[in-house]
């Protein structure tokens, strides 16, 4: 049973997340139209960059953070069977994050903070944007504390027992987010806000980029962990089978959390302010963090195979056909894996130290992260929402068929949108341009791809509308639905778990060590070198 407080909290968080998502999808479609240059009447760089800044912030910070918090409260109370630790804190967190979102939205929507979601100085936007973004993060820190406290309380009440896998992953993600957000928090508090308010005359853009890179990699794992959590703890049950291995799942989460952090310099491969040895070190770490994804892919496919065979599937591939393809969660995971395979290939190119030069900051990059973030990650957010809504609302999903159509169209639209986007990158198109002004023959080849992107975006926008409509209509149903969240059982029940797979105290220390190793000197160098600050610029 999900208690009333948790339901309320979860619905509030998830509606903020999906409201932001829908609004941002409209902006996304406007962007592909505007940048194509096919409709001269809507050409406007200032509107375009205000829109991309808002779209990026809504998708990368608002959708994700609110979704993760809302889902986290549900996981914590249902897997631990324990009420929320300090619900007032939870509401305070929600309030602070929501207030921050509104504060940031005002300058974004009025074109006073067209600094994109990465806000690289020395371009400086309106101070309200930075303060709002900070509050959004500060609110989420309260959620982190609640998750960690709940895991600790449960462990005290159940000494020696294995923490449920779902909660192990969620508390790990909370710890990851505390570490992750520290980098950007330092940048915003000590550089951007003082600069935006005029308290400081200059800042070092090299230091700012280094601090931002601290956050920029692990943040994608913060977004991804709920999807992986669903892979391990929800999918096997929905498919009608068992989790392949509980222990290996824990090990995968640990490696993901520990190694996501000290590797952010793969975002700085092309930067002059860090030396190649550090880049190489972070580059090697980047491949270490690909390991848990390999393992996760294996585990999920193995769990699905067990389910398929239990349902009567025979032969090498026969089990695939006998999976319940009409279960939204199962369909989502299949589509998510397909996008993960395509996106993972692109990721290997990005991560490869020298190949990166070919695609760095080209259209390839947004093509890649739409595929893996808006694709793999967000399709699992959809799946989780479809699963939670009837249970939490106590009413059946408005339309299961609509949900299936929605998931397929998201996948198809995504393929149509991102394939040409990758090609444009290989053809040399930079990312983040509002139109093609280069007087070069080279650009003639770009047009057909832009057209395909408009179409793909339209399919996705339609899909996004169906998603939100389906959830909204579910609330209005008169029927009653009774169900509980069912977590998958592992084939082999966990009995004696080593403490390092049941707790994060040790890993927290390992992270501290690795962060000191990989970021210590690269940050301190700015205080030892003779550097020259930059003054603030508008945009």
């Amino acid at each position, binding site marked *: 049973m999900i208690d009333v407080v948790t339901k309320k909290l979860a619905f509030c968080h998830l509606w903020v997340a999906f409201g932001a998502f829908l609004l941002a999808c409209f902006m996304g479609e406007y962007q592909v139209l505007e940048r194509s240059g096919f409709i001269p009447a809507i050409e406007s760089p200032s509107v375009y960059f205000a829109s991309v800044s808002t779209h990026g912030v809504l998708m990368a910070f608002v959708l994700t953070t609110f979704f993760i918090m809302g889902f986290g409260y549900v996981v914590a109370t249902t897997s631990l069977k324990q009420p929320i630790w300090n619900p007032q804190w939870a509401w305070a967190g929600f309030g602070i994050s929501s207030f921050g979102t509104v504060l940031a939205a005002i300058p974004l929507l009025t074109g006073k903070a067209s600094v994109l979601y990465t806000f690289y100085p020395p*371009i400086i936007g309106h101070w309200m944007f930075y303060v709002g973004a900070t509050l959004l993060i500060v609110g989420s820190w309260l959620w982190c504390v609640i998750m960690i406290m709940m895991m600790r309380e449960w462990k005290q009440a159940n000494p020696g027992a294995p923490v449920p896998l779902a909660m192990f992953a969620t508390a790990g993600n909370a710890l990851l987010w505390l570490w992750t957000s520290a980098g950007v928090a330092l940048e915003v508090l000590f550089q951007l806000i003082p600069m935006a308010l005029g308290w400081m005359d200059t800042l070092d853009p090299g230091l700012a980029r280094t601090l931002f890179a601290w956050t920029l990699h692990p943040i994608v794992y913060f977004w991804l962990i709920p999807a992986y959590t669903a892979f391990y703890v929800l999918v096997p049950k929905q498919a009608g089978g068992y989790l392949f*291995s509980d222990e290996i799942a824990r090990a995968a989460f640990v490696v993901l959390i520990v190694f996501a952090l000290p590797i952010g310099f793969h975002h700085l491969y092309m*930067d*002059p302010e860090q030396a190649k040895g550090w880049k190489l070190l972070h580059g090697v770490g980047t491949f270490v963090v690909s390991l848990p994804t390999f393992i996760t892919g294996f585990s999920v496919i193995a769990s699905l195979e067990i389910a398929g065979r239990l349902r009567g599937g025979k032969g090498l591939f026969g089990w695939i056909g006998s999976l319940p393809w009409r279960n939204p969660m199962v369909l989502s995971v299949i589509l998510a894996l397909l996008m993960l395979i395509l996106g993972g290939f692109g990721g290997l190119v990005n991560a490869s130290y020298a190949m990166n030069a070919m695609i760095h900051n*080209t259209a390839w990059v947004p093509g890649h992260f739409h595929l893996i973030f808006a694709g793999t990650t967000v399709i699992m957010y959809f799946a989780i929402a479809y699963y939670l809504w009837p249970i939490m609302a106590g009413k059946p999903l408005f339309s299961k068929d609509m949900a299936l159509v929605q998931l397929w169209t998201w996948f198809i639209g995504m393929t149509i949108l991102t394939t040409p986007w990758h090609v444009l990158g290989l053809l040399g198109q930079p990312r983040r341009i509002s139109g093609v002004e*280069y007087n*070069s023959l*080279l650009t003639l080849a770009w047009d057909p791809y832009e057209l395909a992107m408009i179409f793909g975006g339209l399919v996705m926008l339609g899909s996004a509308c169906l998603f939100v409509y389906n959830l909204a209509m579910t609330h209005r149903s008169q029927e009653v639905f009774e169900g509980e969240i069912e977590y998958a059982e592992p084939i082999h029940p966990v009995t004696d778990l080593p403490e390092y797979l049941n707790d994060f105290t040790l890993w927290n220390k390992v992270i501290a060590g690795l962060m000191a190793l990989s970021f210590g000197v690269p940050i301190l160098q700015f205080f030892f070198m003779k550097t020259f600050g*930059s003054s603030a610029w508008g945009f």
Partner: protein
Amino acid sequence: MHIDPLEKKWAYAAVGIAGLFVGIILIDALFHGINAPSNVETIDSASLHLSEEFDEDNLGVQVDESGTITIRMVAGRYGFYPKHITVPADTSLTFRWVSMDVLHGVHMPMTNMSTMIVPGYVAQVTTTLPKPGEYPLLCNEYCGIGHDHMWSNVSVVAKEHWTAPGKAPSKGGQDND
């Protein structure tokens, strides 16, 4: 703790795949000198015209006594200066980039001439351009509302048809201001 033998095999395979990539990257970096631009060299972006190296007269293509070709370029909203340069194909070229204002990035499509240009730092890239032709240099990091308009041109000509530009006057040319 229970680990399925099949899963163990897969884990070894995954480590092998990642190890292969790491190996290739390390060998390239350590033995073939294939590295990203990383010279960690600072400069005062606010007074480039007073710096000797990036004084206006000194920009563009230069060949020193030993025949090394260095190309000094300034990025500023919204262009790369000088707006047009001519360089030889199949020859090692060292580009030195600085910004006079905000963050920019630059790449030449279809080549690996790519770097971020961070104010306060000199970004250096050494590469060879195998194919003669007309190439644009495109700004690839958002640098303001005019970002779309930030580009300039490079003519890459066959080695035999390229002549070194005359040595720039040593000092005393006009300044930006």
